[in-house]
């Protein structure tokens, strides 16, 4: 559950989006990464930073979420709550995937200019900051239970998609 008041939706406003974005940009620089992504556990991309034009970001988000879901399933089979960090080593590029507050997925792609140790260190710090913003998202959701664009949707709006 991401939003305590609206269990079936996660609403991200401009302010928190920008804060996520600036943490990702800082992580990108501090970890000497090529690209970083922030994804929700259901596979939607929240934001990214770095050389994203070379990536199919939508597919990457979906597969990262699938990866976390599958390893989470494996973890529970051996009595672990979760595997909070995944690391995939390639010939050229590597991928570090970690969970933030068991709700968001932080993906860092890096090459030989960086190292797994440095990435882990920087990710830990970024994860704490992302967690703080996530709390702010929750608090905003509690305050603004109603009144967004969704509540104003009419059936005519929905029908207009299919004309």
């Amino acid at each position, binding site marked *: 559950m991401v939003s305590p008041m609206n269990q079936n939706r996660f609403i991200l406003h401009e302010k928190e*989006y920008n804060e996520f974005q600036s943490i990702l940009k800082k992580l990108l620089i501090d970890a000497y990464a090529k690209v970083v992504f922030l994804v929700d556990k259901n596979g939607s991309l929240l934001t990214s930073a770095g050389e994203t034009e070379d990536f199919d970001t939508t597919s990457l988000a979906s597969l990262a979420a699938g990866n976390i879901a599958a390893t989470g399933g494996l973890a529970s089979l051996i009595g672990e709550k979760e595997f909070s960090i995944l690391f995939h080593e390639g010939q050229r590029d590597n991928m570090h995937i970690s969970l933030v507050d068991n709700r968001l997925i932080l993906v860092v792609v890096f090459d030989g200019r960086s190292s797994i140790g440095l990435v882990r260190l920087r990710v830990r710090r970024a994860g704490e900051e992302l967690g703080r913003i996530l709390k702010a998202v929750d608090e905003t959701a509690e305050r603004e239970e109603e009144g967004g664009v969704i509540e104003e949707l009419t059936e005519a709006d929905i029908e207009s998609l299919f004309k």
Partner: protein
Amino acid sequence: MSFINYSSREINCKIVYYGPGLCGKTTNLQYIFRRMNPGDRGKMISLATETERTLFFDFLPVSMGEIRGFKTRFHLYTVPGQVFYDASRRLILRGVDGVVFCADSQITRMDANLESFDNLRINLREQGYDPDRIPLVLQYNKRDVNSLASVSELHALLNYRNVPEFEAVANTGVGVFETLKGIIKLVLIDLKKGGR
């Protein structure tokens, strides 16, 4: 769980195609992929076995246009239909906003349809959903085969909630977009209502 991004002005929702093995879930997504304007859909990802049976999921992101200045994007997933992949099916249902249950119209597959439908209800409950309230449409696929069950038989077997139902021949595209539109409408109406 839908994701509404006010910064990029996007609404993202997750739709899962569920049903017994070989009922045509992947075929639905393949048809949508082939027929949609490439600008309105992303790549289709299939995590399948060497014999092209779905191993984990298929994934296809599609855009359906704007509502009140918000782009609407739907992430379409299929589950593996074979009975022994139940752990994977449960994972894929996480965060789902709407379900298409794809039934196989062949008379010989009625038990498989029922077993898969019961499995859907169990897995939804395990993920914290009420199977009687989640947006759901039924697709009766393979209407072109011999020895098929009538729509009223399928209705009696599966449609106790009286949700929208569509006849389809997914490999030629009959009923595929009607089904997709049906579930998208229900998902958006549910989103507007604000929860399950």
